[in-house]
C-alpha cells in the first residue's frame, strides 16, 4: 500500500475516533508532547493506561463480589480511572466513570454493576482502536512516510 493511501486512511480513522468520542482533545495534547526525543511517548503512555485500567477494573470487580460493597473504595477506584482516562483523552471511558460515580454516591449496586460492565467494554474498545491506529502509524513510518499532525485534521 502506498504511503499516501495509508496516510489518508490514518487520517480518516483518527477523525472517526474523535467523532465517535473515543478520544478527545486531550489526546491531541499528548500527541503534541511527543517529539523526536520521545518518539514512543504516546504508545508508552497508552500502554501504561491500559495496564492500570485493567488493574482497576479487576479491583472493582472484586469489590462488587464482596458481600458488603465498600462504596468508598469503589469510588476511589472509579475516581482514579476517571483521572487516568481523562489524562489520555479516552472520553467514553471517562464518561462512564462519571456515571458510575453518581451510582456509587447513591449506593446503587445495580447501576454500578452496569457501569462496570460498560467500563470494561469501553476500555476494550478504545484499546483496540488505539492499537489499530498505532499499527497504521507503524506501517506508515515503515513505508517511509510521516504521520500527519492530528491538529491539522480538525
Amino acid at each position, binding site marked *: 500500500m502506498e504511503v499516501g493511501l495509508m496516510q489518508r486512511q490514518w487520517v480518516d480513522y483518527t477523525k472517526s475516533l474523535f467523532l465517535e468520542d473515543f478520544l478527545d482533545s486531550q489526546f491531541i495534547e499528548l500527541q503534541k508532547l511527543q517529539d523526536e526525543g520521545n518518539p514512543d511517548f504516546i504508545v*508508552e*503512555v497508552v500502554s501504561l493506561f491500559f495496564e492500570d485500567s485493567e488493574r482497576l477494573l479487576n479491583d472493582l470487580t472484586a469489590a462488587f463480589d464482596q458481600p458488603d460493597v465498600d462504596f468508598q473504595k469503589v469510588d476511589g477506584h472509579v475516581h482514579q480511572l476517571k483521572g487516568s482516562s481523562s489524562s489520555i483523552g479516552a472520553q467514553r471511558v471517562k464518561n462512564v466513570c462519571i456515571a458510575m460515580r453518581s451510582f456509587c454516591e447513591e449506593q446503587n449496586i445495580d447501576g454500578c454493576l452496569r457501569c462496570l460492565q460498560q467500563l470494561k467494554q469501553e476500555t476494550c474498545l478504545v484499546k483496540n482502536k488505539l492499537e489499530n491506529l498505532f499499527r497504521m502509524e507503524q506501517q506508515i513510518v515503515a513505508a517511509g512516510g510521516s504521520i500527519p499532525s492530528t491538529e491539522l485534521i480538525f
Partner: protein
Amino acid sequence: MDLGHMKGSIPTPTPTPTSISARKATDMSSDQFPAGLRVLVVDDDPTCLKILEKMLQNCCYAVTKCNRAEIALSMLRENKNGFDIVLSDVHMPDMDGFKLLEQVGLEMDLPVIMMSADDGKNVVMKGVIHGACDYLIKPVRIEALRNLWQHVVRKRKTEWKDLEQSGSVDEGDREQNLSEGANYSSSAYEGSWNSSKRRRDAEEEPEERDDTSTLKKPRVVWSVELHQQFVAAVNQLGIDKAVPKKILELMNVPGLTRENVASHLQKYRLYLRRLSGVSPHQSNLNNSFINPQDPPFGSMGSFNGIDLQTLSVTGQLSPQSLAALQATGLRRPTAKSGISMALDQNNIFSFENPKLRFVEDQTQHLNNSKPVNLFHGIPTKMEPKQLANIQHPSVQPQGNINMQLNIKSEHGGTQLMHLSQQQTIGQTLGNSPASHLPRISSTLRKPIISGSVMRGNGTADNSHRPGYNLVSPTSVMVNYPMSQTTELSNNYSLQSNSSVSTLNCKGMFQEEISSDLKVSGGLMSSYDVFSDLPLQKSHDWDSQNVSTLAFGTFHHGNFIQDSFDISSSTLIHHGFPSSQTNGQNQNSSVVGKTVFSFSDSTQPENPQNIFQNSLLDPVEVKSQRIPDANYQTDLLSEDFGQDELLGVFIKQQQQGDNGSVDFSGYQTENICV
C-alpha cells in the same frame, strides 16, 4: 544539586532541563528562569505521572516523579532546598493529598499545587483552606503547567516581604494598627486604655488575621435600605422559616452572598431574641420599651417607635443590619444631631448617674432610668432601659457614658461609641456573642438615627450628632461589651469603653466585659446576639434594652468615638461586628476585627486596620466607618461562627461578675462631657 532527577523516583533523562537545572539548581534567578524550576510531582496514577512529567519537561522544568506521598515527603526532608515547588494529586492511597500539602507547608514551606479529576467546589475549597497555592483540574494541560513558576516567585516575594518587615506583613499591619490605635487612644485616654487596647489587639490580631485572611470576603455594608429589604424578606418568610438562601432570593440584591445574609440573619436573630427574651417589654419593642422609661426627651418617643421597629426587626437583623443602621446613623448627621442633642442633655447627667447606679446596685432599672433618660433623647429609648434591665447596672452606666460620648462626637461619635462599647464589651467577653451585639446595635442605631431626625431632637444638623443615637447605643453597647468586641472594644474601652465598661459593665457584663464589655452589655441587650451571649443574664436588660440598646449602642459608639477619639469608636466598631459575627469566641478577636472592618470600610479584613482607621479618624471618619464595621459582621460572621461568638459572650457573661459594676474604671473624664 539535584538536577531534578534526584532521589528516588525515576529520573528522566532530559538533557536540556538537566543542564539548565544544574545551573539553576541553586538560584532560580538566572536569566533562564523559570527554566530549571525544580518540580516534584506526586501522583499514584502512573499514567498521569508520566504525562505530567513529560509536560513539565517540555516546560523546561527539572522534574522528579514520585508515586507515593511518603516517599515524596522523605525526599523533601532529605533535601530541604532541593525543590522549588510540589505538585500533588489529591486522592492517593497512602496519604491524603491535603495532608501532604499541610506537611510540606509546615516543614518546608514550599508552594504546593493540588491536582485532581475532582472539580467539586468542596474539594477545591479544601485545597484553598489547607493552603494550596493552586488547584488544577485533571486532565492537566501543559498551559497550566507553564506558569507554575509564578507560585514560586510569589511565595518568595511574600517571604522577603515578611522578613523585611520583621515579621509577616500582617504583623506589620497589626503593629501598625496597634500603634495607631495607641496613638489615638493616647490622645483621648491614656494608659490603661492604650495598653489594654494594644494588648487586646495583639491578642486578637492573630485570630483576626487568621480569620480574615483565610476568608476574605468583601465587606457588605448593610445600609438601612438593605436592611429593610432584609427585614422585609424575613418577615415575608416568617422568622422561623427565614433561611439565608430564601432571604437572599427574596432580597434579590446583586452581589449579596448567602453568607452575607446568613451572618446578618444571625445577628438579627440574636437581636430579636434579646428583645423578646429579656422581658415582656421586649415583645413590644416598639413602644413598650420606650414608654416605660419615660424618656426625658420628648423626641425619644418618636425615636423609640423607630427603634422598636428596628429592634423588632433587628431580632432578625444580623450584625450587618446593625452596622447598616449605624452606618446610617453615622452618615446622617441630621439624624444624629437630633439625637446627639438629646443625648447631650441626658448624657451629661446620665453619665454621672448611671455610674453611680451601676455601682450601687445591679438593678439595671436604676441605671436604666438614668440612662434611659439619656436614651430617651435618643430614639432608642428602649435601649437605655433595656440596658438597665438587661444587663446590670453596669449596663446603664455604659449607656450613659456612651451617650455622653455621643454627644461629644459628631456623627461618628455616636456610632463609634456604640461600636466601641460594643467592642469593649465584646472584647472583654472575648469572643462572646457580645460582638454580636455591637452589630446589632448598629443596626438598631440606624433606626434610631432616623428617628431622631424625624423627631428632631433638636438639631437635625450634623453638628449635633445624633445624641439620641448615642444614648441608645450606649445602652446597647453596654450590654454589648459582653459580646466582646474584642479588639475594638478594647480600644473603646480604653477610651470610652473601658470607662464605660467599667462603669456600666460591671453590672452588665461582669464577667467578661468588665471594662469593655460593659458598654457592650447595653448593646447586647438590644441585640439578640446578646441574648445568646452571657448577657442573657441580664435579661431584663436584654428584653427591654435590646432594641434600644442596640440603637443606643450604636450611637454611642459613634459618639464615644468622637469624643474619645477614634479609639472608642473603633472599639465600638469592633465590638459590634464581632458580636454579631461570631458567636462568642471569637468575639474578642472578631469583634475587634469586625469593628475595624466596619469602621474602615476599606479594610474589611483586618480588624486591626479598621481599628486603626477608626482610631485615626475619630470624627467623621470613624463615625462613618463604624457602620461599616458593624456590618462587617458578615465578615466576622463568616470568619467566625456566630455560635462561637455567642458562646464566648455567654461565657464571658458568666465569667464576669455581673454584680460588680465598677465605675471607677470608667473614665468619666474621658467622656468629655
